[in-house]
């Protein structure tokens, strides 16, 4: 039997859940289809960075839009998502790196963006007292922060369901087809049909796009993270390095999350990853050098989430270049978590109003396939 709905969203990551919620807020009745459970992959297990800092310029408007939603996330979701805003700091480890930082901030200022601010050694030390004394400065984005990714994704899913979305978890979307102005998708024994289909399937989205005739240069990656035992509070902002691969965040409970983009081997079809401990050892060594206070901490757990990374490192976001009613929202390339709330809001505007005030033009799939519509 076929159930008619207003929109079909494939993928229960933060993007699919956020879009589903915003469609509900716009008065639509969407269905959300997730083959595992909401937040099972990258959205639930990423570092939780809520970061405007150091973003690619084409996605900055979307990031800023998203930041506004993060700052009142509790009003939207009735859940604080453990969001906290102590800023994010990019540390330059030497003068060369600081020069790159200076040029970057100047470039942003010229474009009218003011969220990134150059800081000297004294301000760096004030923000991050534990950082090694040799670092000459860096960049801060003061409104940035972090949230609990699993809690956030789950909260979006829960709120969407409360507002009338149909949620199907544990069953894959199969046999996606278009006819008579409707997209139809089989979900187990059910079939859903809608004029709108959103492809927010994360690491699985590239296959869906390719099957629909819009292949894009995307690969599946699994960035690794590790978390330590509780250590006494010593740092508030999220810290990332300009030169080496490292991101660093201490939570309220004292545990410290260490990331930075070293990759595990993904086994996508088994939902598994195999960690590369020798790369993680490199992260550990960087922390060891920069934060002596961490040396006796223990590593409690390490993991990796499976996600899609575009060759050009910016997402595919917006309407299809081939099919009416099809929208893509994937390929966030290791930095999609912060964008989730804003991307859902903008996607709902594209679907409901046919356009948005937020500048997203450089993110479309038409950068790979000129539109035939």
């Amino acid at each position, binding site marked *: 039997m076929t159930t008619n709905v207003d929109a079909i969203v494939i993928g229960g990551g933060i993007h699919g859940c956020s879009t589903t919620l915003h469609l509900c807020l716009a008065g639509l009745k969407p269905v959300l289809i997730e083959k595992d*459970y909401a*937040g*099972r992959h990258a959205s*639930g297990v990423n570092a939780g960075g809520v970061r405007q800092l150091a973003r690619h310029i084409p996605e900055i408007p979307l990031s800023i839009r998203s930041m506004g939603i993060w700052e009142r996330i509790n009003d939207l979701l009735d859940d604080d998502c453990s969001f906290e805003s102590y800023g994010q700091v990019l540390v330059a480890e030497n003068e060369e790196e600081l020069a790159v930082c200076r040029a970057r901030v100047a470039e942003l200022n010229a474009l009218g963006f003011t969220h990134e601010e150059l800081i000297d050694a004294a301000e760096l030390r004030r923000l991050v007292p534990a950082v090694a004394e040799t670092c000459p400065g860096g960049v801060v984005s003061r409104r940035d922060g972090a949230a*609990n990714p*699993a*809690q956030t*994704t*789950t909260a979006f*899913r*829960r709120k969407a369901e409360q507002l009338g979305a149909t949620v199907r*978890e544990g069953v894959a979307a199969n046999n996606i087809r278009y006819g008579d102005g409707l997209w139809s998708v089989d979900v187990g024994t059910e079939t859903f049909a809608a004029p709108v289909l959103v492809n927010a399937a994360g690491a699985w989205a590239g296959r869906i796009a390719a099957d629909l005739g819009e292949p894009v240069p995307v690969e599946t990656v699994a960035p690794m993270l590790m*978390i*330590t*035992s509780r250590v006494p509070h010593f740092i508030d902002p999220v810290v990332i390095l300009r030169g080496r691969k490292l991101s660093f965040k201490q939570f309220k409970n004292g545990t410290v999350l260490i990331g930075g983009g070293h990759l595990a081997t993904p086994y996508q079809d*088994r939902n*598994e990853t*195999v*960690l*590369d*401990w*020798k*790369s*993680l*050892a*490199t992260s*550990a*060594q960087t*922390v*060891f050098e920069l934060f002596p206070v*961490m*040396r*006796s*901490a*223990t*590593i*409690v*757990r*390490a*993991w990796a989430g499976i996600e899609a990374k575009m060759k050009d490192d910016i997402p595919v976001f917006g309407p299809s270049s081939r099919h009416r009613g099809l929208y893509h929202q994937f390929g966030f390339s290791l930095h999609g978590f912060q964008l989730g709330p804003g991307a859902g809001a903008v996607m709902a505007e594209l679907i409901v109003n046919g356009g948005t005030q937020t500048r997203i033009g450089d993110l479309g799939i038409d950068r790979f396939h000129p539109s035939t519509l």
Partner: protein
Amino acid sequence: MSVAPKRDDYDVVVIGAGPAGLAAAATSAGAGLTTLMLDENIGPGGQVFRAISSTPVTDRNQLGADYWVGSDLVQALRASNAEVIQRATVWSLDRNLDIAVSIGGASAFVRAKRVILATGALERPFPIPGWTLPGVMTAGAAQTMLKSSALVPDGRTVIAGQGPLLWLLAAQILRLGGRIDRILDTTERGNYVAALPHAFAFLTSPYFAKGLSMMREVKAKVQVVSGVTELAAAGDGQLASVSYVAGGKRETIPADLLLLHQGVVPNVNLAMAAGVEHRWDDLQLCWSPVLDVSGNSSVAGIAIAGDGAGIGGANAAVVRGRIAARAAVESLAPAAAAKLPAMAALRSDLAKAERGRVFLDTLFRPAPQFRIPKGDTIVCRCEEVTAKDVLDSVAIGATGPNQLKAYRRTGMGPCQGRLCGLTVTELMAQARGKTPQEIGYYRLRAPVKPITLAELAAVPKSEADVKAVVRG
């Protein structure tokens, strides 16, 4: 003193030097395979033969004849060419059979053609009100102190729970002059009836006569209360009393030490982290790996022997170790396998060793109220999450143990779910009207045992990194 593994690659790496691991490593090395034994403890023996080479207890009767069987197994291992490293904590194993091991504060990586996991058992969580109070400990922890240091309780001591190991511990404490004020037996009365059809097999098992005489020995010296249906520990920052209900009557007794035990379950953490498929065992009420008749798991090259393969006891563990090792020899050095005892003979030994197991499993199946707590009783000790907290999270949408992490951080502390995992699965299954198999278990990740950041930082880097430094 730290001894790193001599090679980077081995034919067989055996993890755990309990009965299964000792037998497996001796068999594999004896057949000429390069064999590395990695064991976490100071000496070989595992839990059942703990401190077999070093115990200060010299009177063989005190720990019992079964304990001293361990020294033959250790002799056999030492006579073989196996490389044995003690105090070696394996903290990662993956499906490529890459092993990370911490030895004396330094980590090393080795790769195996076959891995035999003999990581044994853990005590089942016993989440009663007050179980986290100082003064409440597991019977297994008490037994460790007894075997390695001849330490026995001398304050007011209560032992509560059920199962063969509980009686063994009680007998060992008494023989060494320790004090036990009361034993509270939580075996459900209905279990005696349910176990009856399996009694004949048990009567012919070697465990029968020994078990019976041990229980008689204990009952002659200690007051045993049977049919206990409720149990709670209480005290202000320290255990002061134990209260219980038996035959509908509540009683509270003062106590300095409460030893809890309701059986053991497979220690699955390393196997699960390696990606080995597990299933819920409805009789033993725990997760057991899915294995073929030779102990091979769902991950190619990883076999599991001993209680980690499903609780079977020490005798079965020895045979399972030999079977897993023989299977490894058959695949890596078929000619050498011909000299080993035939697989058919080993399987018949195993059947004999496992005789009576269903009877024990049925009789000592712990009652629901001691597995699935209520209200304010702590479920997750690391994050101090109560049963009510878990149910509240289920009510607002947590569907399984992994989703629960987003609400309560259960299983994310240093114990990696060892103390709460089974409780969380059963509690959520009950609340959602699903089977434990449907509810599932925590996804476990390395490091399976915590390592320090300094130790990880000191790990030899990958070839690419080293080259970069050399060029740099």
